């Protein structure tokens, strides 16, 4: 007991080495946290891109249809039905896209919606459908 008291009485605060180690460890941990923060994976950008190309597909079909006949009102998805299913989120989690279209006064509004984990997402695009002739 006397010996411990003797040792404690002779302690003169922290060693420089202790402080260096502590600083190193905390700065290392802080750096990791700062790095990790923006790297939470967001798959939505890929799905949004897929949805945008799907909307373009519908616009192309509408343009083609408009060149042959007058169109107005609600339209079904006129493209390839297989394109409505996508594995871009992951191989074992296929996403179903829904495309709704409304044409009025030469303007077409195409909405593409999908669900991820019970949450709804949607993009809305609008374009003038002109009859193009060479």
């Amino acid at each position, binding site marked *: 007991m006397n010996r411990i008291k003797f040792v404690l009485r002779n302690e003169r605060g922290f060693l420089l080495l202790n402080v260096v*180690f502590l600083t190193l*460890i905390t700065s290392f941990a802080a750096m990791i946290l700062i790095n990790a923060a923006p790297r939470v994976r967001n798959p939505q950008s890929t799905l949004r891109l897929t949805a945008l190309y799907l909307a*373009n*597909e519908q616009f192309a*079909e509408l343009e083609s249809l408009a060149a042959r006949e007058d169109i107005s009102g609600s339209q079904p998805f006129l493209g390839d039905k297989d*394109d409505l299913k996508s594995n*871009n989120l992951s191989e074992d989690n296929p996403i179903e896209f829904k495309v709704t279209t409304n044409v009025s006064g030469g303007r077409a509004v195409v909405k593409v919606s999908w669900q991820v984990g019970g949450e709804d997402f949607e993009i809305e695009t609008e374009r003038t459908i002109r009859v193009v002739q060479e």
Partner: protein
Amino acid sequence: MFKNNGGGFVVAEFAIALPLLILVMYGLATVSVKIFALGKSQLADYVLESEAQYVMEEVTHIARTAREVEISTSGGQVKFVYHTAADKNIIESTSLNGRYVFMLNDVLETQYFMLYEKEGRNSSNLYAKRQDDGTYFNPITGENYFGDTKVNYLKCAVNEQKKILHISLEMESLVTGRKIKLDTAVYMPSYKAGG
């Protein structure tokens, strides 16, 4: 019996502190390696998405004005022919993969094709070649420093009646193995069936 230099106490301190320190350092090293690996795969995914988008944009842009579309039976090559204000009275021929393609005066064309065989590499890249590029053709995908990619397929199908080109592209990252498939269609008002 005891020497009053505190030597025994320091040994006990080290016996506890050293394994703890090693454990903490090991944990931190593992986490940091995982985070850097995650960052690497995210960069690779970004490259994949960006390259797929670039190919789609380029192909749809060219197809929009196409007058003819030629698709090879293997599906690895697609050629768009369109009219431009190029120099007249030039008739030239060029060779591409052993095939001869004849081009006429005011007609220009852009070809996209996949090459599977390249030195030191067995995955497919997409190449683009414009008629006025001469004999040069350049890869438009793959071999990015942040993540290599390959093109699994570029499927094009023309509906002659509707004048619509349906495009399907699947690309895969060689770093993460992740695949991206994009489908779209282009209306080609100048398209003439049979040229």
